[in-house]
């Protein structure tokens, strides 16, 4: 009975719809906005004629101007990273000394005092603890400086201006202008960036935004870039300019990420995801004086500590895995040794090495643990090969550069290509899961993982080949 009536209602509605015409939707919208205008007219009193503060307008003209928009963006980004790198150097070294030498020594003494079996103290101290200690000392100082600075820029209202500047480029790439916003969301976390693509109406453009979000450097990857920039790129510069070189190299990779976002978007919108670019209006919010103390507090507590916590949680099991594969031997060589030997040919071909590739496999759950994994694997492998020659390798005093160059055989090319590969590889498993949840498509999730990985192998192979041909490496 009810069903019959429902059917009749729908039929009536359809008949009436035909009578009234199709432009009803627009007519209703117009009526609503006319009503809104009338009500606002009565309620709002303006003291002056100008709607926005004059310096707001002036600042907007400057920050979004064709001539100065991009240079200012690069300048602000470089300044942010310069402050981060210059400020994080000393605390990072101190924390490294504290956690990896002092505390590490105490833990081993304590383990000896209670006669803990070697495999237990190895697994817990040399595996789990050391991985967490590396994450802590490598990530905490730069993040504690970078996040508040970035949040201040965000709070002030600068990000929508960046979006405004990039909008033209996204249009030209056949993508949605709002993708610039989702891209910046990805600069924090790619999983969050993928979820934020919900603001894009058209499924085609939304998919492009999802597939390219990985080209935004995320929380987990900034520390890798900052560290590589600091100890390898900065080292090539005169000491006074070291931090600037380092910052410039990090910004270069971030900008390269934007370039890849645009290129891949253009490629997708001309091949598998063809269609018209849709229009939207981007609101430039007023500049608001940043609340410095509150920003410091929330970005330290919410962002830094939450990201650090996630990294530490991921580091603990990874540390155990690293210790196990380094200490379980098959035919006299550790499992890690076998795996590294297996991956070395490909790794060296693309200017990386087997350890780095193995680290990227171990670190699929979180990019945060790449550096600690690389360092621990390098050290463990060096230890066991030296031990076979009867030499005990003592833990160096936190000198990452020494460990990597002397025991890992790293060159400048390795560092540059690691920075490139950090930008261009598969998203972490959390992001992949999010992509699957948002698209409900195994195919697009696979594309999201394989596309950047392919580009990454291509790009690093290219730089490695050039470097070899030029005789640099």
């Amino acid at each position, binding site marked *: 009975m009810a069903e019959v009536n429902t059917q009749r209602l*729908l039929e009536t509605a359809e008949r009436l719809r035909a009578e009234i015409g199709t432009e009803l939707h627009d007519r209703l919208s117009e009526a609503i906005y006319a009503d809104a205008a009338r009500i606002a007219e009565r309620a709002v009193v303006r003291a002056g004629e100008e709607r926005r503060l004059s310096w707001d307008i002036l600042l907007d003209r400057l920050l979004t101007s064709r001539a100065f928009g991009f240079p200012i963006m690069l300048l602000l980004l470089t300044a942010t990273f310069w402050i981060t790198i210059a400020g994080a150097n000393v605390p990072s070294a101190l924390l490294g000394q504290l956690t990896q030498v002092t505390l590490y020594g105490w833990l081993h003494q304590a383990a000896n005092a209670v006669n803990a079996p070697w495999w237990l103290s190895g697994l817990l101290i040399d595996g789990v603890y050391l991985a967490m200690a590396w994450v802590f000392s490598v990530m905490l100082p730069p993040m504690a400086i970078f996040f508040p600075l970035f949040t201040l820029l965000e709070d002030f209202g600068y990000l929508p201006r960046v979006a405004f500047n990039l909008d033209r480029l996204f249009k030209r790439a056949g993508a949605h202008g709002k993708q610039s916003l989702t891209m910046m969301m990805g600069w924090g976390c790619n999983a969050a960036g993928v979820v934020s693509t919900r603001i894009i109406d058209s499924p085609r453009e939304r998919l492009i935004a999802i597939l390219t979000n990985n080209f935004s450097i995320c929380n987990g990857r900034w520390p890798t870039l900052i560290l590589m920039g600091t100890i390898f790129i900065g080292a090539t510069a005169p000491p006074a300019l070291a931090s600037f070189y380092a910052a410039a190299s990090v910004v270069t990779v971030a900008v390269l990420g934007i370039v890849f976002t645009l290129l891949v978007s253009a490629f997708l919108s001309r091949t598998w995801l063809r269609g018209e670019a849709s229009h939207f209006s981007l609101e430039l919010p007023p500049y608001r004086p940043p609340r410095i103390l509150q920003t410091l507090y929330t970005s330290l507590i919410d962002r830094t500590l939450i990201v650090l916590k996630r990294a530490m949680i991921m580091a603990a099991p990874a540390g155990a895995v690293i210790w196990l594969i380094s200490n379980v031997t098959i035919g006299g060589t550790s499992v890690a040794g076998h795996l590294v030997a297996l991956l070395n040919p490909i790794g060296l071909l693309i200017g990386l090495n087997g350890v780095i590739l193995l680290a990227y496999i171990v670190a699929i759950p979180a990019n945060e643990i790449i550096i600690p994994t690389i360092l621990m694997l390098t050290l463990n492998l060096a230890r066991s090969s030296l031990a076979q020659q009867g030499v005990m390798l003592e833990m160096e005093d936190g000198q990452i550069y020494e460990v990597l160059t002397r025991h890992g055989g790293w060159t400048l090319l390795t560092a540059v290509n690691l920075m490139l590969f950090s930008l261009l590889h598969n998203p972490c498993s959390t992001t992949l899961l999010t992509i699957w949840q948002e698209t409900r498509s195994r195919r697009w999730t696979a594309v999201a993982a394989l596309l950047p990985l392919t580009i990454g192998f291509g790009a690093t192979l290219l730089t490695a080949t050039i470097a070899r041909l030029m005789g640099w490496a």
Partner: protein
Amino acid sequence: MADTNRTIASTETAACGSCTRCSTGPLTRLGVHIGSWDFVIALAGNPNTGKSTLFNALTGLRQHVGNWPGKTVARAEGGLTFNEKRYKLIDLPGTYSLLSASADEEVARDFLLFGRPDVTIVVTDATCLERNLGLVLQVLEITDRVVIALNLMDEARRRGIEVDARSLSRDLGVPVVPTAARRGAGIRELLSAVEEVALGAYPARRRHLRYTDRALETAVRSLIAQIEALFPGLPNAEWVALRLLEGDESILRAVQDGTLGKLAQGGAPAGAAPLEAN
């Protein structure tokens, strides 16, 4: 961490100490530990009007707030106690309209319609009221259990814009409360108004659309009659009639699969609607 329970004494700001109106009943921010609740409040509004800031001020949560539109795309939930009533607060994605063109608009609209919040706070930007009123009017078509938060009043004042909250309240038929969420100003007044609406103590006046088109008016009237006969007790028959006339896919579906019917029978209690927005 983010779930701190904090009881805010009535001396939170200097102005609050001397104010008799708000010294009744402390506000307790419950963070994510809501437990059971008496009322569900939805928080709607245009993007970048300070919705998330208000959400944080009300719940004591520290959802990340950014000065850019489109930051909140999923639904966030939190809780608070005010005058011994427990409220569950749901922060909807910021939208310019409820025409359901995109996923975030649909999340907001579906929750207002099917989630049936006891009160909806529409957060508006006092510095550009006219544009914000579009959404307000659309929300009012769905429900009259609404409180308008006239936010960013401090910024408006700095720019020499004055908004007459009483005139606005008279025109809209619902309470309008000036706030400056960044400083926590007006929060208690806002909650008092929410309480009044939740308890049904506020004499809300339903706004009716004025039709200039005779044929349209007749069509709407005849559809309303059928809808009310079919779904007695449905609170927004006029809105549904208009969507049917527009051929709105998701409403047509709701009529067909009986979702609308359930809504009319009182349906699920507010907030417990099986609506997943992730």
